[in-house]
């Protein structure tokens, strides 16, 4: 693990002003009517062995971002730098050596495993491909040994190598997905909602497995999730996304203790607490309303339509990401949980979007502000 900004040494992965716009076509000639701003100028870096949690509501662009990172989507702008090499525009053949280093695990283990292939074939496919690329002799027996070892690594019975995906439970299928990702010895695994489809008791098993694998194999993770309770257990840092932008980026524990962006606070407040007394005592102010249309995002701060602290500046000027002394960054004109001295020491983060305004926040949010 490195320092809070994750960029102390050369990072494993760096995103600079990454942008992914999807055209919206309409009419019989399919003319482009506008663009969905799925990921709009996002920058961050990931250190070797680090886990970055990526959190936000559906439609915030977290999955699109995850797919851009592993080049399942071609970003429309910005760059992805992996191990010091710009891989954003590499052609498929040139990209191949990097592909083995970046793997992805999908949300739905049912849909992401070929139902007609045996587990051995699914997990071994990457192995065989990689050996073919490297020109090594692809001995079937050797691959099988390796698959058995992988199955054992993820807590499955190696004797089940000839089973089909439907013969496993949901949690076990997700373990198969993890084994497949591990097969080619990646450095980075992008986990796209890896436990959202699983039951609570099984969720915990898979999260613990991911934790162990990271320690044993020195992996880096980008862990995408829609709520803040699971990512907390795996993340070193957490990025909160809203409508295509990163609104807050913080060391994991700080985010829960002192959320700076009102959206983060709202997300935290909306998570139900499994304790009736605390639940009754809590005054909740979950964000009202819904996500605005990403084709035509609100000007200024994108959260202003739902924010109880929003003022005129929020509706006109996009807030820059501001780095506070603790290493915690947030893009908000009216930050919460910061002192005046912290504000005085705050600097504009180099990760700020290019379109952000020049001015840093001058005063903390007014706690007396009434819900919008």
């Amino acid at each position, binding site marked *: 693990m490195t320092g809070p900004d994750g960029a102390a040494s050369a990072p494993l992965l760096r995103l600079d002003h990454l942008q992914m716009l999807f055209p919206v076509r309409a009419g019989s000639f399919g003319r482009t009517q506008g663009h969905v701003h799925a990921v709009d100028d996002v920058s961050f870096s990931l250190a070797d062995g680090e886990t970055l949690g990526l959190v936000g509501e559906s439609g915030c662009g977290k999955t699109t971002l995850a797919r851009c990172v592993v080049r399942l989507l071609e970003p429309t702008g910005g760059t992805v730098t992996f191990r010091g090499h710009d891989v954003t525009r590499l052609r498929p053949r040139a990209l191949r050596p990097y592909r083995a280093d970046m793997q992805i695990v999908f949300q739905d283990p049912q849909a992401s495993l070929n139902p007609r292939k045996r587990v051995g074939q699914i997990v071994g496919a990457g192995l065989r491909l990689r050996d073919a690329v490297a020109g090594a002799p692809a001995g079937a027996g050797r691959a099988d040994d390796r698959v058995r070892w992988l199955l054992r690594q993820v807590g499955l019975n190696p004797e089940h190598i000839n089973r089909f995906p439907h013969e496993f439970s*949901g949690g076990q299928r997700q373990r198969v997905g993890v084994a497949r990702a591990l097969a080619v010895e990646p450095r980075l695994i992008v986990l796209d909602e890896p436990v959202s489809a699983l039951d609570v008791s099984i969720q*915990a098993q898979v999260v613990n497995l991911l934790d162990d694998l990271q320690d044993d194999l020195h992996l880096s993770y980008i862990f995408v999730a829609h709520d803040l309770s699971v990512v907390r257990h795996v993340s070193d840092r957490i990025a909160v996304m809203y409508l295509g932008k990163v609104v807050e980026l913080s060391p994991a524990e700080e985010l829960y203790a002192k959320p700076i962006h009102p959206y983060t606070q709202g997300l935290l407040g909306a998570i*139900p607490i499994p304790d009736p007394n605390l639940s009754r005592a809590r005054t909740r102010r979950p964000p009202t309303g819904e996500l605005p249309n990403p084709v035509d995002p609100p000007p200024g701060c994108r959260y202003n339509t739902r924010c109880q602290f929003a003022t005129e500046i929020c509706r006109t000027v996009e807030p820059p990401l501001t780095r506070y002394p603790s290493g915690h960054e947030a893009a908000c004109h009216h930050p919460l949980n910061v002192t005046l001295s912290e504000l005085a020491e705050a600097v504009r983060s180099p990760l700020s979007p290019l379109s952000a305004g020049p001015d840093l926040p001058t005063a903390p949010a007014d706690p007396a502000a009434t819900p919008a």
Partner: protein
Amino acid sequence: MREEILTVEHLQVGFRTEEGLVQAVDDVSFSLAKGELVGIVGESGSGKSVTAMTLMGLTRSPNASFAGRVRLGDLDLLSASDSELRRVRGKRVAMIFQDPMTALNPVHRVGEQIVEQIRAHESITKAAAWAWAVDLLRRVGIPRPEERARSYPHEFSGGMRQRVMIAMALSCSPEILIADEPTTALDVTIQAQILAEIEDLRKETGVGVLLITHDLGVIADVADRVVVMYAGRVVEQGSLDEIFYDPLHPYTWGLLGSVPRVDKDRPGRLPTIGGSPPSLLHPPAGCHFAPRCPWRFEACGEVPPLQPTDPGSRHHLDRCWLGLEDKRERRLVGGAIGLPARPAASAVAAAEAAAEAAAEGERS
């Protein structure tokens, strides 16, 4: 005073399949009172949804077999005829589902769908029913209801669609609302809004709500009483506080222990329940939870009865052979309620790891 409107007694639901009989619901009993919110909590395959669907007669098929009684007033819903059931569905018992997109008809305007439901039970004109539908949409917090009633389901967001479902469910002022994972497909912020909506309606109309969920946080937020299900059986039921502060079944301990919390310090590892739920085709003999339970002993080979362990609280029932003192002592793991890792299993894993290391050594 509880005024019971629905009682389920020893409900059994089995499905004959090619591989054999699946006993999806095995001896489930609970009751729901007017204005009460009962939460049924359990993991996938626990039988919670089958229970709910059976109340509405939605599991009837040539391959299904039923036993027990489900009483709504003086009507037994298990033996009711199809025409009797049709009068109950939507009118006396309404249901909302997890996925509002598949529950709404995509080719009809939402207003029309609500009108259809109203006119199936009430003899009023189309115009009056339309006005009523618009009123309901306004009631559940849909902005510009006159306009939105003319929209199609795909023009709504997930949260708004669930509001439409609630409006439809309420259209005939039912006595009971069954909500099967109503917020599972929604974001947490929208979930909070929908739960608040259900709470308001309950206070306002006195509808009894049966909320089925896998999320203990949701339960803690809204439920009066809780039924915990595991592999087709009720393993524990009691008041909200009894389940959260005095849980008496090891499965409940495990469930409470494995929920990731945002309001507490993070543990080094998330506590888990070892193993996975049994197949209902070949359930274990005796207690269904025994194979995963670190506290199992000889008695667990027989099915424990659902009964009060604490003579002081007659309505707090559980299905476990352990004694009260044992339970209150063993449920604490490091000061919090949970299940300890199974000592036997870790020993097995260690032995496997040793054998594995030896095998690796030979290979290299």
